[in-house]
């Protein structure tokens, strides 16, 4: 055996646990899911091939449209809000202020909170009568709505809640801010740039790859949102928070329509892929690439 082949064999041997796990627990189910999406399958009886029927049905399914629209609204709103809050918080934390380390730990903490606990907590925070949010608004003389029980406010409430768990993105962006070469700021100082100008000409371009990375990850994650709508609003009121992942779950495990659920899931993958590639394509034109 040639030394090169032996190296490949040794490398593959070391990574074999992952290769096996990937084949069995991800690739296998993904292929199975693709096959089932062309079948009528209800978990108890055997699968029946129905061709494109599931996809055709999906096209005319009003709840599919509602779920898709809600999910896109949630994903774009929480990505934009998340990006803005992340940028603000990360910049503030990197000013070298006393106590910044403590605040950084506090901001990271919510990302560790189990989703059920977070939901329980926010359900009560947003409670129309007893919640802290409306209590605070009450001090200012404003009568807050019943956030989660009002179709006009429920989705917005979930978006605001999503900005509570930005610990990961703040960590990534903070590292990027710390990595901006001092020399660039010194050069900007020499040119008399201050405040906003310094930020726009030096900081923002230098950290833009991290912002793009956070944005893409945030969109991918929020397109999959499941816990908060499932636990806090059950898709309601009036389907205002019926999101895609919950609809897939309902079809697979509540209505017993595994085949249809798999078709829905594959449309989800394709939509996510298109959106991600689109974002990266736009990003490439906006983001400053070091050394370019």
């Amino acid at each position, binding site marked *: 055996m040639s030394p*090169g082949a032996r*190296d*490949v064999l*040794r*490398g*593959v041997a*070391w*990574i074999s*646990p*992952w290769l096996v*796990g*990937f084949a069995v*627990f*991800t690739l*296998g189910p*993904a292929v*199975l*899911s693709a096959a*089932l999406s062309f079948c009528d399958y209800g*978990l108890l009886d055997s699968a029946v091939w129905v061709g494109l029927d599931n996809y055709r049905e999906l096209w005319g399914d009003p709840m599919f449209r509602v779920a898709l629209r809600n999910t896109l609204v949630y994903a774009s709103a929480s990505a934009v809000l998340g990006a803005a809050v992340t940028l603000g918080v990360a910049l*503030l934390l990197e*000013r070298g*202020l*006393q*106590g910044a380390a403590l605040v950084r730990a*506090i*901001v990271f*903490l*919510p990302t*560790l*909170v*189990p*989703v*059920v*606990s977070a939901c*329980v*907590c*926010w359900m*009560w*925070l947003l409670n129309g*009568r*007893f919640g*802290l949010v409306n*209590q605070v608004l009450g001090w200012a003389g404003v009568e807050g709505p019943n956030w989660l029980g009002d179709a006009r406010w429920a989705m917005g409430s979930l978006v605001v809640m999503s900005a509570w768990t930005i610990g990961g993105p703040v*960590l990534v962006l903070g*590292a*990027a801010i710390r990595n901006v070469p001092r020399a660039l700021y010194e050069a900007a100082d020499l040119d008399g740039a201050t405040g906003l100008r310094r930020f726009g000409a030096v900081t923002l371009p230098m950290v833009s790859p991290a912002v793009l990375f956070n944005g893409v990850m945030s969109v*991918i994650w929020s*397109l*999959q949102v*499941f*816990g908060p709508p499932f*636990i806090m609003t059950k898709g309601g009121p009036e389907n205002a928070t019926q999101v895609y*992942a919950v609809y897939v779950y309902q079809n*697979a*495990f509540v209505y017993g329509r*595994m085949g249809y659920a798999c078709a829905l*899931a594959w449309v*989800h*993958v394709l939509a996510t892929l298109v959106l991600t590639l689109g974002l990266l394509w736009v990003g490439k034109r906006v983001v400053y690439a070091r050394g370019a």
Partner: protein
Amino acid sequence: MRAGAGHRGVAGSLRRAGLWALLAAVGVLYAAPLAWMVGVSLRSAEDAAAPGGGLLPRVRGVEGVEGVEGEGGLGAYARGVAAQGAANYGEVWSSPLADFPLYLKNSLVVTILSVAGAVVSSAIVAYGFGRLRWRGREAVFVVLLATLMIPQAVVVAPQYVLFKWLGWIGTFAPLWAPMWFGGAFSIFLLRQYYLTIPRELDEAARLDGCSHAGVFWRIILPLSGPALAAVAVLQFAACWNDFLGPMLFLNHQDDRTLAVGLHMYLTQHGGTPWNLVMAFSVMVVAPVVAVYVLARRFFVEGVGTEGLRE
């Protein structure tokens, strides 16, 4: 150097005060939900459901403790809150509606098996990606990174079919067994860390006749403490917090983990008092927070910088 001129010094310290106030506001805002959760868990049932109750628990109606208005002052108030809290937490612990100690045991079993599996298998796989040179390595690594983007929702339904076929539904196996095959993100973090360890170390050991297994065991692992700790903490949190997996793959109520148990506790009994739900919730959050605080030093070393190189 920037605070050179006098007027800029004054303006500078004013600005600094403004920034500091902003920083404090961020800290308060992000801490508020959890602080509020703890606060409600210390209230009495009537107090938790009283509109405009204010921020601090009121003590009333707890045996042997007078209200705040009494002469006892702060000490009596603290004792009252503590007694109320103890009553709430005790009630959740021994509630007939949810077997908290059993759920805790289930969560611990699943989490410990998952963390052990993820750390061991990811450490080995990362060696193949980070310390060995072989053709095709980069391409396979790109595939590994791409799997991070696969939505869980897509595979979870067919995974159910797979686990059913394996006879794993209703057992803990679907929750921990897959972790023994390496997690993509853990492998990524560990590989990034391995790359920062000087190559001369393994080359010298190899010249001395050490096998790759020996290099891995005697050189790489001992030097990767922070990254291994970071992976363990992340895996602990992911597994402890998992809700969808246990909800789908377990079907007996005695097998519930804490996350699912809390959800049942919340939904099953419409009238569950919020102070008790919050006490339950606090007891679910506390272990994760404790692990994070204990391992924070490693965590920052292992992830904060190394994970982001490249």
